[in-house]
């Protein structure tokens, strides 16, 4: 994994063309807030937020609209000041309609009272509470409530904090621009996280297709203010930004099957999350905006925009001069793992790292039967055999699919990307996981009864 030139890597992976040149030179631009925002109550993994405002309420920028719905949950905040016009189901990027708070923007951006804290002298629990109250979730796309990751049990001490600047998905450049433009804030965010976790080592992992980001961050990290932060230069290969692959590349440890990074003493946070943590802890700002890469062949002006949460995707795309007639697929995220969108009116959420317009449909041909070429198993970063699992799932043999470890699939899409028969292996993996999970739930319920 570690070669003589100081570049880290992991096993498997694929090399899709980057297409980052479309937007990588566009500095982060502030998108003017839209006339109406739609803040979904479910923008994160875990329980949806519980509404605490009602129709007709006047809200301020950064005011809490919904409190966390449990431990594994996060609050949501207003991204504009104005009046709550309605609370109902709206199109949601996940494909289903979900409850969202519609706010009419009064254009004043009146901020709710916020205050930063002196984190260096505060107890770690207080800092974690500040992060939780700010609604911080994983900004890399998974949107896992960050305070949960920052509260490992005492039996699982953390020695390594990794800040994920890999941004391995093609087309996306939001994290790249953040690293260039908000370098010090990210480093301070890393320091805050290091203190909270009592971690001994901090790495910032950056792929080597971003040499200027590596240079800038390395240079800034030399300052003693940040303590010891090392930049890990990663070999550019998808999915290097996957948590498990990042840990394997930098520490050579493997997260055990069905386990978590904390099981091997590691915690991983995206650079965008580190920035949001800094803003929340130092300035008291809750999470109500994020950088979104707007790109693809149908976008006239590919950009990296600072977008208020709840802005309809249509508004963002129009600002970037998108020719909608050319768009065959609109992806929230990157092309390898992103979600295809059915409605342009769904809002930008905390997890929206990019809006990608694709003008071609892949694959352009129907699938063949599997020819056992082995591309998929060579590409799989988890070393599964997707071809066999897909065959089992296709035949309804879900217990065999489970035995061949379909539950360990990270759904990165590397297998389907290289399959010459154009079989959508990810579809079969997801289907297999669904059936195995259902069978396990059924078995657990029956065990309880007995």
């Amino acid at each position: 994994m570690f070669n003589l030139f100081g570049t880290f890597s992991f096993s498997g992976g694929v090399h899709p063309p980057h297409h980052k040149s479309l937007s990588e030179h566009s500095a982060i631009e502030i998108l003017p807030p839209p006339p109406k925002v739609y803040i979904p109550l479910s923008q994160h993994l875990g329980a949806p937020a519980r509404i605490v405002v009602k129709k007709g309420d006047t809200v301020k920028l950064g005011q809490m609209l919904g409190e966390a719905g449990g431990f594994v949950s996060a609050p949501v905040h207003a991204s504009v000041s104005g009046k709550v016009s309605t609370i109902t189901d709206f199109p949601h990027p996940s494909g289903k309609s979900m409850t969202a708070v519609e706010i009419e923007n009064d254009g004043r951006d009146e901020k709710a009272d916020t205050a930063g804290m002196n984190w260096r002298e505060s107890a770690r629990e207080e800092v974690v509470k500040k992060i939780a109250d700010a609604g911080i979730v994983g900004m890399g796309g998974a949107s896992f409530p960050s305070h949960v990751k920052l509260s490992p049990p005492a039996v699982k001490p953390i020695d390594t904090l990794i800040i994920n600047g890999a941004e391995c998905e093609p087309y996306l450049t939001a994290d790249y621009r953040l690293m260039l433009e908000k370098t010090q804030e990210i480093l301070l965010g890393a320091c805050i996280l290091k203190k909270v976790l009592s971690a001994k080592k901090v790495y910032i992992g950056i792929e080597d297709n971003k040499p200027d980001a590596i240079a800038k961050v390395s240079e800034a990290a030399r300052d003693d203010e940040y303590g010891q932060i090392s930049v890990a230069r990663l070999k550019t290969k998808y999915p290097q930004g996957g948590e498990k692959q990042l840990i394997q590349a930098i520490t050579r440890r493997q997260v055990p099957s069905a386990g978590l990074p904390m099981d091997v003493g590691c915690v991983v946070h995206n650079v965008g999350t580190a920035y949001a943590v800094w803003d929340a802890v130092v300035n008291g700002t809750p999470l109500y905006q994020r950088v979104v890469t707007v790109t693809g062949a149908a976008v006239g002006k590919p950009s990296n925009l600072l977008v208020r949460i709840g802005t309809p995707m249509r508004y963002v795309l129009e600002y970037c001069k998108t020719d909608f007639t050319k768009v065959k697929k609109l992806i929230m995220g990157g092309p390898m793992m992103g979600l295809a969108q059915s409605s342009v009116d769904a809002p930008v959420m905390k997890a929206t790292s990019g809006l990608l317009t694709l003008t071609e449909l892949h694959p352009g041909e129907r699938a063949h039967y599997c020819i056992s070429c082995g591309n998929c198993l060579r590409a799989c970063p988890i070393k599964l055999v997707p071809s066999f699992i897909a065959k089992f799932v296709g035949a309804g043999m879900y217990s065999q699919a489970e035995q061949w470890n379909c539950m360990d699939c990270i759904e990165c899409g590397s297998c389907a990307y290289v399959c010459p028969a154009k079989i959508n292996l990810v579809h079969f993996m997801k289907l297999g996981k669904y059936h195995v999970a259902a069978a396990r739930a059924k078995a657990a319920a029956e065990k309880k009864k007995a």
Partner: protein
Amino acid sequence: MSEEQQQGIDLHLSVSPHIRDRESVPSIMLTVVLALTPAAAASVFFFGMRAVVLLFVCIVSCLASEWLIVKFMLRKPSTLGDFSALVTAVLLAFNLPPGLPWWMAAVGSLFAIGIAKMTFGGLGNNFINPALAGRAFLMAAYPAAMTTWGAPRGGSLSGLAGAVDAVSRATPLAAFSKAVETGTFQALDFQEALGDLFIGNVGGCIGETSALAILAGALILLYRRVIGFSTPVFYIGTVFVLFWAFNGTGGYFTSDAFIVPVYQICAGGLMLGAWFMATDMVTTPITRTGKIIFGTGCGVLTYVIRVYGGYPEGVSYSILLMNLLTPLIDRYTRPRMYGKVKKRG
């Protein structure tokens, strides 16, 4: 039409990933056809019109068989576009002696495509190599015609002049086994024959004689990553090691006997088999360890059949037998998953 469609917005939905690599089944098959052209050119060069006829008959018969079966029996869209029938046709033709009557080649093609491939569901579902199955069928059905050889133009049948008896030296392999049997083995004779053997100026099946042409094709396959090194290297290597150790000339791994394994790997269908047939994706193991086991197994079987079996040639049957073991090999050579938790106790 939805409101969005009226605005000219028509979004397609699917599961990720939303991009694909360019390589496809047809592109892989065409690469194999490209890699077979040096050997095809060699076959025409050495065997002339007979090679052209056999190649033509096999290609037409294989394509026609697949097209007719798919259209009239399965009632599905044509599968000829994946070019796998073309690959089978050329490989089957390569396995036929130059003098074979054209209608036998047609019958063999029908068997290869119809029985060995289509009855099991077509490309991807066959469990044995269709071209080799066709050859095995023809060997069983028309043994005399399948073992009647002709000398190449400008060359001798076995590549050997001199000491070995003219009648029984039908092909290089036959000449070799005869020589060892009758105790008339002379390293020098066989050394002189090596040049002819390498470029293909000897008797044999039309596509298997030229090791040079086959290796040229193999380089194309390796460069385009259609095949790996594991199977061919372990197949040829095992045959080499076994013949160097146990060659009936008295010594084990002696420098005198070194000519024997060199001769053996250039002779008969080993080069064609190791680089083009034992590397067939569908019928061979999918993991690298599996491919190593497969190649080694083929090597052992080829040695055993050539030395102890009734035929001087063992490649086809070795590969077919190992094809049968592929599912078992796959089951026991699972790669070690990331994060695999060792079971306690």
